[in-house]
Structures are given as structure tokens and as C-alpha cells.
């Protein structure tokens, strides 16, 4: 339900949502109708789930992705999250047990951080949010290391030759990764 209320926000970052549950199609449809018509949760109501929800009664797909953890429950998928990039490669994997809900702000942060890392060839530190300093990859040749420490290339802040950060303004990140025309 929380995912559904944020689907536009994910779409703004060129990200599609695909859900899966080890249930039949009719249970899914009944569930989605109930969410839309009856359930009010944390001020969310009348939520329409527009992303596809996969039916996987046979657990064929859940098993392929290692979503069944028999020590937890052999008949249900745990809460797994796979972030797949535009080339079809897995870029982040997060697992939660059955009884622990996810943090969707964190998933949006993961998407923005992965896209920023790809676009600017940088790494993002703990708890990073757009606009905060990013980590620049360590200098390769020794000459570059010396240069970094002596001159401090434009916009770089080096604590030591192997630990340099730089600032990327939020608007630069937004214009690089946000889908155009999506306010």
C-alpha cells in the first residue's frame, strides 16, 4: 500500500515497480479492491495499485529469486527487494523477514544513490541524500595522488589522497536522473 502511494515518485526516477506474492490472481484482485475501497492506513485511502502484481502460487519465480526462506516459513515469500538496472543487471538486494515492513523512503534513496553513482562515477556514503558530499574514487597513478594533495583539484576536498569528496548540487543530480517533464 505504501509502495502504491509512492509509485509516481518512483516513476519520476525512471523506476517501475513489480510486486510478487505467492497467491492466486483472484486473491490479488480481491486484495487490491479491498485496498482501494476499504482500507485507510496512515491517512492513505482510496489507493489504487497500478503496478503489476505477479501471481506465483507454484512459487516458481519466488524460488528462482531465493525469496523462500524455509527457516522463516516454507509457504510464503519473505520481503525481498531486488533493484534491477536498465541493462537487466541486479544492483541492490535487500531482505526483510515476514513480520518486518520495509522502509520505502530508503528504497527511493537507494534508487537515487545508484543513479547518481552511475551518472557521476562516484560512491555515496552512509545515509547519503542528494546534495550531500559524495566520495570520489581513489586516485589511480601515484602522480594523481600527489596532485590531489598538493593542488586540490576544483571542487575536491581531500582528507587524504585516498579519501576525497566533492559536492554535486541537488539540481545537477535532478537534471541528470529525473525523468524530463515529470514535476
Amino acid at each position, binding site marked *: 500500500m505504501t*509502495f502504491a502511494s509512492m509509485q509516481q515518485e*518512483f516513476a519520476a*526516477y*525512471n*523506476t*517501475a*515497480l*513489480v*510486486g*510478487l*506474492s505467492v*497467491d*492466486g*490472481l483472484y*486473491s*490479488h*484482485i480481491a*486484495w*487490491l479492491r479491498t485496498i482501494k475501497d476499504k482500507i485507510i492506513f496512515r491517512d492513505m485511502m482510496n489507493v489504487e*495499485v497500478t*503496478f*503489476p*502484481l*505477479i*501471481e*506465483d502460487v*507454484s*512459487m*516458481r*519465480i519466488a*524460488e*528462482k*529469486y*531465493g*525469496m*523462500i*526462506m*524455509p527457516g522463516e516459513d*516454507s*509457504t*510464503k*515469500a*519473505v*520481503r*525481498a*527487494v*531486488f*533493484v*534491477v*538496472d*536498465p541493462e*537487466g*543487471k*541486479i*544492483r*541492490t*538486494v535487500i*531482505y526483510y523477514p*515476514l513480520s518486518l515492513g520495509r522502509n520505502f523512503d530508503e528504497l527511493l534513496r537507494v534508487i537515487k544513490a545508484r*543513479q547518481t553513482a552511475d551518472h557521476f562515477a562516484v560512491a555515496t556514503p552512509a545515509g547519503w541524500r542528494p546534495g550531500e558530499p559524495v566520495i570520489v574514487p581513489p586516485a589511480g597513478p601515484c602522480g594523481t595522488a600527489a596532485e590531489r594533495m598538493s593542488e586540490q583539484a576544483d571542487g575536491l576536498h581531500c582528507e587524504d589522497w585516498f579519501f576525497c569528496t566533492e559536492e554535486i548540487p541537488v539540481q545537477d543530480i535532478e537534471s541528470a536522473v529525473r525523468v524530463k517533464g515529470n514535476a
Partner: protein
Amino acid sequence: MTTNEFPITTTAMPRIGDPAPAFTAVTTRGGINVPADYAGKWVIFFSHPAISLRCVPANS
């Protein structure tokens, strides 16, 4: 009803950097082919615990 009506074989989860295992599926929005249908997009593929409640014998 026991919980072992299907033999459970679990596979390792795909790792970061692996190609996403391909599959076709029936969904609430029609058939999909993952990851082919989503080329050029990022995808968050997530699982949700089953909604239907399976009865557990009272003495289990």
C-alpha cells in the same frame, strides 16, 4: 493441511552484479516478461508475504 504439499527446494538468491533471472508471469496487469519488458528502466522487484491464510492445525 500440512505445509509440505509441495516439495520445497530453495535456490540461492541472485547476487549483486548478476543478470536478473528471466521469467514470464501472469499479473494483475496482464502478462509480463522480466527483465525484457523493462529494458531502459530501473525496476524494483519485490515480494510480499502471501495474503491468503492457510489453516494450521490447532495442535501444531
